[in-house]
């Protein structure tokens, strides 16, 4: 199990962004779902995802929510051959919308 340390709550930052969340379509999917993923691979995504979408709680339970995705593709590059099974762009007009960029 990892000892990746962080104190910041990125969700609060994401709430400042403009999103059109596509509730019915996950544009990123993990092989077998987040809970089943190899912890070592999952750790990589915890370290590199700028939106902190890959989480592990105190009990060690892994979770992933695409809703705050910044669509950078970093998880696809980091783990596209292992646990990131699907990475597509969100459906038309959906996803993040940067006002500053």
């Amino acid at each position, binding site marked *: 199990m990892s000892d990746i340390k962080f104190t910041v709550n990125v969700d609060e930052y994401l709430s400042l962004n403009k999103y059109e969340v596509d509730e019915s379509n996950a544009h990123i999917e993990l092989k077998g779902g987040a809970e089943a993923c190899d912890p070592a691979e999952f750790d990589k995504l915890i*370290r590199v*995802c700028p939106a902190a979408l890959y989480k592990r709680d105190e009990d060690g339970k892994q979770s992933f929510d695409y809703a705050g995705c910044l669509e*950078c*593709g970093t998880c696809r*590059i980091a783990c596209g051959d292992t646990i990131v099974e699907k990475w597509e762009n969100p459906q038309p*007009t959906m996803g993040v919308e940067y006002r*500053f*960029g």
Partner: protein
Amino acid sequence: MADFDAIVVGSGCAGSVAAYELAKAGKSVLVVERGNFAGAKNMTGGRIYGHCLRAVFPDNFDEIPFERKVSHERISLMSPDSNFTIDFASDELLKDGQESYTVLRGPFDQWLAEQAENAGAEYIYGIAVEKLVKDESGKVIGIFAGEDEITADVVVLCDGANSLLVEQAVGAKRVPASQMAVGVKQVFELPEEEIEKRFQCNPGEGAAWLFAGDCTHGTFGGGIIYTNKDSISIGIVAGIEATAEKATVPVYQMLEDLKNRPEVAPVLKDAKLVEHSGHMVPEGGITTMPELTADGVLIAGDNATMCVNLGYTVRGMDYAVAAGQMAGQAAVKALDAGDTSKAGLKCYIDALEDSFVMKDMRQFKNVPAFMENFDRMFCGYPEMMRDMMNTMFVVDGTPVGPMKKSMMPIVKGMGMMNLFKDVRGAMKAL
């Protein structure tokens, strides 16, 4: 007969300029942009060098919505308990054709798209192209946008760092994690005069500030600060493989720690956070560059990893603008000649090879490998610099010895061979 002479996928620096060149030459052009407006999915550090835009927009260059002209180049070597900063200002940095500007991609990309639209390009926004249309011979003859198949004699692919189409177009493999970086950035609003005070800049001017060392807590990457008109961009750019495998904290925590550094916190004081963004930087340059043409298709910009990170200078947008211009002009030539096959599009390769774009890529071909293995820059040299500076600046009343005697152990602590190797490596790579 195809629906359009040309389709451009993506309306960033390369795509808008390619579409502008095509439309200006009287070709029918469709631009398909996945954002609801140009720039909606884009992010930069960032700064663009003016020369490339002067070449494309000689008559209306002054209308470009730049944020600030960069008059201060700052580089910091950061150890956990010190920070050594170089601040360079020069008249040469401000001269037309040599100058650079901070930009925000929202306003900047919309202006670029507007130039293409005003020249006659048609736009579809809000749809990501998922697939290219090919004929029996394998030639690219169009795109699928949502349900619709739209055809063109030539397709210019400018779909950015996270391209899902380059593989389809030219069969290139996904860029390895060792050659890509992830950028995480926040934009803080602050009044114009306050920015000028905090960064000691004249009105309209600003700073580009790069950090190496403890901002990534020792792994491959760095920090950035750019002053915009009435906001400050602050971010971390970190190698994906190094961060995934070795980082002690996640990238967003690196950013948080950078914001809280005593050297940085005062410039952000009372500034209002307005956006948190992420994007990739294809730092591989020529080592990861795909084939840039195939039958019916041209590739330009970040998707072709046209980017260099030298540590003191980071470039990508000027390469994208220039490559977009050359791709647009080459597509016009090929259309006029009635041959958009790979052979017909070779004029794009020739133009690139003859320009600073490919010449720079070749010049810096060893930089990515050098940077990747330059661990001492991220942990080692910042500490050495700290110890040397402390030797010079700390005064405690004890008798001062000869400088040579106090400095040499610090330098020796790094290892003379290591220093020699790194200097030699840098000389060779740069």
